[in-house]
């Protein structure tokens, strides 16, 4: 199995760290992984994106033009990456601020109002974990256990007390994702 | 050796052991030979013959490595302090010094010079300032005095066209990293003795880890200045010392 994933949104939404957690989760499950950010000034408030590939076999290009899964968290990212989802692939978007929703019918489109859910949980920082939960529900790139292990592995110990909250966010994400 | 026929008790002067027999390429009256001799003497006096690395510049002193029997590296133009930093940081128990002229140090190498001094790297910079490019044939340098004629300012340096003579040594005084900054000359016996003391103090400070040191030797270039050696010394005393004031400008070696 190989999953070629693009995650895109505003800088500050946790796009790069979401990709990192996903890549680490793949590492926990002994898969091949690459994490390739569109680096540069984008990190400072513009749009940010990261390509994550999780695979059972050797990964060739870490940079792609077509994706199995696109997670788009703002309108510009939706507009840019909707055409780049492979036929039969998956597009997940956050409904917040989306004026022109996805139109393709040859892919599976999922909406999740993760921004609203994060606000409901009174913690904007768990937004990206909610989104990851949604992804795992519709496309189990890694297991929830792998994700949990990745958090233990990557977070400094002083933040380990926050892991249950993050895993709760993942569960919330699984519940709120809706096929369009 | 001529010393063989002299009774040891009567010996008043000998060529320093570290100066080899290679004939120097310097012009008659040039200060470089004297400065080389002082460095050779100080290294031997300190017993550092086997633990010294010199860095020679691009300029008249490029061949310094032919004359003093120590290990050397010959640097790209202006980069001697960077080489010295590379050596000294990796061999902290070695005595590492650069030997640079005003073209090398005060023109093309100001960045490397000031930053090495500012970092307090434990190196010594010996700076021979004769206010002209000697090796390439007497062109203006950044330290050429106003009104001084050179091949590239034949009617004399003017501030409108060429800016003002730069005093790196005074700049070095203000840098926190320097522990010893001195300006000397070598045209008289008394001056030579003072210059030797300054070089010794600088070398010792660098071995004691007290920071960077800079010893400027205000010098002549009779060929570039187009004067006899005697006239050049007189011109230096009457013109150079006015602008480049001699003395120990900073001494924190006792602190």
């Amino acid at each position: 199995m190989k999953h070629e994933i693009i995650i895109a949104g505003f800088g500050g939404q946790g796009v790069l760290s979401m990709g990192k957690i996903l890549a680490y989760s793949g590492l926990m499950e002994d898969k091949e992984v690459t994490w390739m950010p569109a680096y540069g000034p984008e990190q400072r408030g513009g749009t940010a994106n990261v390509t994550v590939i999780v695979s059972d076999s050797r990964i060739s290009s870490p940079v792609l033009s077509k994706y199995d899964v696109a997670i788009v968290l703002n309108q510009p990212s939706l507009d840019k990456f909707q055409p780049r989802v492979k036929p039969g692939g998956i597009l997940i978007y956050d409904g917040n601020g989306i004026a022109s929703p996805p139109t393709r019918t040859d892919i599976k489109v999922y909406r999740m109002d993760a921004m609203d859910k994060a606000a409901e949980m009174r913690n904007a920082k768990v937004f990206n974990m909610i989104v990851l939960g949604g992804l795992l529900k519709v496309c189990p790139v890694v297991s929830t256990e792998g994700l949990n292990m990745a958090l233990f592995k990557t977070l400094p110990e002083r933040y380990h007390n926050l892991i249950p909250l993050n895993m709760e966010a993942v569960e919330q994400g699984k519940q709120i994702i809706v096929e369009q | 050796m001529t010393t063989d026929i002299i009774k040891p008790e009567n010996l008043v002067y000998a060529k320093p052991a570290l100066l080899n027999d290679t004939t120097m390429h310097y012009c008659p009256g040039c200060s470089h030979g004297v400065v080389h001799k002082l460095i050779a003497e100080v290294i031997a006096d300190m017993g550092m013959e086997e633990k010294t690395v010199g860095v020679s510049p691009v300029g008249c002193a490029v061949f310094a490595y032919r004359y003093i029997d120590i290990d050397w590296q010959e640097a790209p133009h202006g980069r001697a302090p960077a080489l010295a930093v590379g050596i000294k940081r990796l061999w902290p128990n070695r005595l590492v010094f650069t030997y640079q002229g005003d073209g090398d140090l005060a023109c093309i190498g100001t960045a490397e010079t000031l930053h090495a001094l500012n970092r307090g790297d434990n190196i010594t910079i010996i700076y021979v300032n004769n206010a002209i490019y000697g090796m390439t044939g007497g062109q203006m340098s950044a330290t050429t005095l106003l009104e001084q004629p050179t091949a590239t300012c034949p009617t004399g340096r003017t501030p409108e066209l060429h800016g003002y003579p730069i005093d790196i040594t005074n700049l070095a005084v203000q840098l926190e990293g320097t522990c010893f900054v001195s300006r000397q000359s070598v045209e008289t016996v008394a001056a030579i003795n003072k210059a030797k003391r300054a070089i010794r103090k600088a070398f010792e400070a660098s071995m004691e880890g007290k920071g960077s040191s800079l010893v400027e030797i205000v010098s002549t270039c009779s060929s570039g200045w187009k004067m006899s050696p005697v006239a050049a010394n007189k011109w230096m005393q009457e013109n150079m010392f006015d602008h480049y004031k001699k003395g120990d400008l900073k001494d924190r070696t006792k602190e």
Partner: protein
Amino acid sequence: MAEREVRLMKGNEAIAHAAVRAGIDGYFGYPITPQSEVIETLAQLRPWETTGMVVLQAESEVASINMLYGGGGSGKRVMTSSSSPGVALMQEGISYMAGAEIPGLIVNVQRGGPGLGTIQPSQGDYFQSTRGGGNGDYNVIVLAPNSVQEMADFVDLGMNLAFKYRNPAMILSDGVIGQMMEKVVLPPMKPRRTEEEIIKECPWASTGHTKNREPNVITSLELRPELMEVKNKALQAKYEEIRNNEVRFETLHTDDAEYMFVAFGSAARVAEKAVELAREEGLRVGLFRPITLWPFPEKQLASLSKDKKGLLVVEMNAGQMVQDVRLAVDGSLPVAHFGRQGGIVPEPEEIVKALKEKLQ
């Protein structure tokens, strides 16, 4: 900690970890995107407290390379890293190091040029790296990693080659390999050599003139042309030895291939994907990846090209390595070039399309 632990890190971070593990004595560098993680990671690792490795942020790339000159000239294992504009500044020092036969390792995480250009990935420095880059007749050993693992592995390899031949070596990477995270197994810890070992292994180095030898003078200067020619010929003989002994390359699906992509570094990763796509379409395509860009694997490429219909050289530049490919195969088969420039990474699909358009 287990030595064989699989880690996930950026190529730039892998360079830093590998440097500490390869017994490097000194790193001298200046920040520039997209490689600043190298010195940042070293600053976090604080190797001066463990292995004694010196890490110094210099005032410029010019100073960095000359610190390498000084440190390498005194027999120490020294390295720097930078990106294209910074490496351009270093060319004077690299030429001097080659002339004075000083070992040292330079990492170039390339970005698009010319000039200040862009901070996005590029391979525009192929000529600069493989043709010497500074003044005079000389070559630098150039290794082109295409993974984070190779970034880590090539630090020790590059440094060893530099010392074996007393010549600067370069890791020619780019923003993709520097910025991407991938799995990596860091090389085992190798102790730094003691001062006694260095003096014994590097009898040429300026470590202090002991009575048992002549003074060591590290210089590239020789004003007498007849002696300078002798010196140049000796350098050329050394380069010939490197050409004969140090060529490295990798092939993928070349046995049954009708066409081959030729690509290095991150372009080779994209070309590998293009091989997958082409084969899904029934096109028999393979990949030839030079690992040493100098010495270029010319004989090996010529030999593998014999039964092929054509080569497509894929680069992130306007066509640089393609010249070496054409020289290697000497007109025996069609050679085309596909390149993206200015910081654009080619897409696998457009590589396949270019193959069809240019060679079929």
